[in-house]
Every structure is written in structure tokens, then in C-alpha cells.
């Protein structure tokens, strides 16, 4: 991974994310209070998180693949249904993925 590329990305993200946080504290309250804007703001993270979950589970080097991570994420989903704490959910995904890989999956 190109070091300069990574630092540029870190710089952009740092500035962008900070301005978002600060902007909310500084702008007049009614600017963002329109119902449509609020709805969109609530749905945007859902779309991004869903896409990211799927992509990081089922892709490798720009291609779609099904491998041990699929099993790990299925186990994590089960843990979520059973209301497991956050860290347990992540740990379950890691352990199951490692286990399936060790078994040659």
C-alpha cells in the first residue's frame, strides 16, 4: 500500500469528519431540521453500513467470493439475534472465520 496515498486519505478523512462534527455544533438549529434531510441522514448510514458489511464479507481483490468470512458473519448475525454484547459479536465472527479456515474452508 502506497504510504503517501494512505496519508492523503487520512488527512482528507480527518478534516472532513471534524468539519462535520463542528458544523453540527455551529450551524443554526433550523438549517438541518427539515424532515426530508433528517430522514435522509438517518438512512444514509444504513445504506453505507449494509453495503460495507456485504462487500467486506464477500469480496477479495475486486471480485465476489464466498469464503470463511461468510460463515463468520453468519455466526455474528446469530449472536446479534441472541442479543450478545458488541465485543462478543466481533469475537464470534473472528473465531468462526479462523475455525473454518483452519478446517480448510
Amino acid at each position: 500500500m502506497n504510504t503517501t496515498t494512505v496519508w492523503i486519505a487520512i488527512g482528507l478523512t480527518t478534516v472532513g469528519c471534524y468539519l462535520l462534527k463542528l458544523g453540527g455544533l455551529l450551524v443554526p438549529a433550523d438549517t438541518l431540521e427539515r424532515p426530508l434531510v433528517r430522514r435522509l441522514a438517518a438512512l444514509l448510514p444504513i445504506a453505507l453500513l449494509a453495503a460495507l458489511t456485504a462487500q467486506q464479507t464477500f469480496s477479495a481483490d475486486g471480485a465476489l467470493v464466498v469464503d470463511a468470512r461468510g460463515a463468520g458473519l453468519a455466526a455474528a448475525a446469530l449472536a446479534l439475534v441472541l442479543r450478545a454484547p458488541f465485543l462478543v459479536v466481533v469475537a464470534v465472527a473472528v473465531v468462526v472465520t479462523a475455525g473454518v479456515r483452519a478446517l480448510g474452508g
Partner: protein
Amino acid sequence: MAEQSTPPAAPAAGHTARAEAAKPADAAKPDRAVVRDSLGVGVAVGLSGFAFGVTSVGAGLGLLQTCALSLLVFTGASQFALVGALAAGGNPFTAAAGAFFLGTRNAFYGLRLSQLLALPRALRPLGAHWVIDETTAVALAQPTRRAARIGFTVTGLTLYVLWNLTTLVGALGAEAVGDTDAWGLDAAGPAVFLALLAPMLRSATDRAVAGLAVVLGLGFLPVLPAGVPVLVAALAAPAVLWLRGRREDRR
């Protein structure tokens, strides 16, 4: 520790699974109780910085880069998204765009917090760095401005210190382990996303957005440059809203 296994309280502004300890309280809540709640959330979530440290180094970032992200960006989902996009070969601009869009919710948290906390102007640039899911959830759950300020500050401080310490430990651990994939650690990132996503899926609209985003994100993955498909998938949000609006118009 916070009651992590309880279902999330009705969230005000797109919550994470991690902020569940924040509960509505009685009007006269002692400062000690606020501090205790805040520490519970801070400790539980702060520890997950470990997963970020491991994921980031496993994705190919250096120790310094990984720690810089936790120190400077300090909003978990954006950090995970950025290292994931970079690992997939995305250019820095599309990678940062994904992280930025995930961070937009913090602007809406800030909006609510500015009325609630009424921070002096001089303190706002400092306080802004801590405007995230968990500090907002804790502050909004407090009955008074004083309690909200204490909750925001204690949660923010605890989280900031622990998130950065555990990031460092995770990054060092991943460097020591070497092949993080063999240990299944490449599953930590998506599992974090899933755990953040799950409590947000409450209405049929939420689920439709998530479903469409998955289809778009995976469908465009083989054909568009890395980092771009996730931005296309973000269009699921306005698309579903627009379709729903049309259907309501027709009724």
C-alpha cells in the same frame, strides 16, 4: 459494566449497538450515577478500538497511520470504512468520501447537542471532536443540562483515552501476529459494521434501504473502481425515500 445485552432504547438519531447503557433517568439524577453510566459506555466501547487496531494493520496500514486515525478521526465506522476501502485498492478520494458520508450523522448529533449542552463558543471546537454516537446517546438520556454535560464529558474522555490505547495495543498485536487473516481477523471489520447496523434496522424502509444497498454494493463491485460501489450503494437511501414518497402520493 453497562447492560450491553438489553435491547437498544428507542434511538433518537441513528444509533449504534454500543450505546445501550444510556437510559432515561429520573429528574434528580445524582452526578455519581451519570458518571457511572458514562464510564460503562466508555469502557465497553473503548475496548473495541482493539478490533480497529488489528483490522487497520491487517489491512496494510502502518502503526503510526493506524494510531493517527484513532487520534484524529475518532469516529469508528468512518475509520473502519477508510481502511477497508484502502485495503481494497481504492484511491484516497473515494476512500475518504465513504468515510465522510458515514460521518454525516455526527453533524446531526452536533445539532442536537449544541442546544442541549449550550457550550461556550470557545469550547465548541474542542468539544466537537467528541461528538459521536455514544457521547450523544449518553448526553441525550440525561434529565438536566448539568447531567448532560457531565455525561458528555466523562463518556468522551473515557472513550477517547481507551479507544486510542486499545487501537495501539491492537495494532501492535497484529504486527506481532503477522498473517492476521489466518486468525480470522479480517472478519472483525465487517462484523463491527453488522453490529452497528443491526439496531438501526427498525422499519420496513430501513430494511429496504439496507437490502438495496447490499445489492448495489455487491453488484457494482466487479465493474467499478474500488471504493466507488459503496458510494453508489449510498444512493439506496434517497432512492427508497423517493419510491416511498411516490407510493404515498398515489394513495
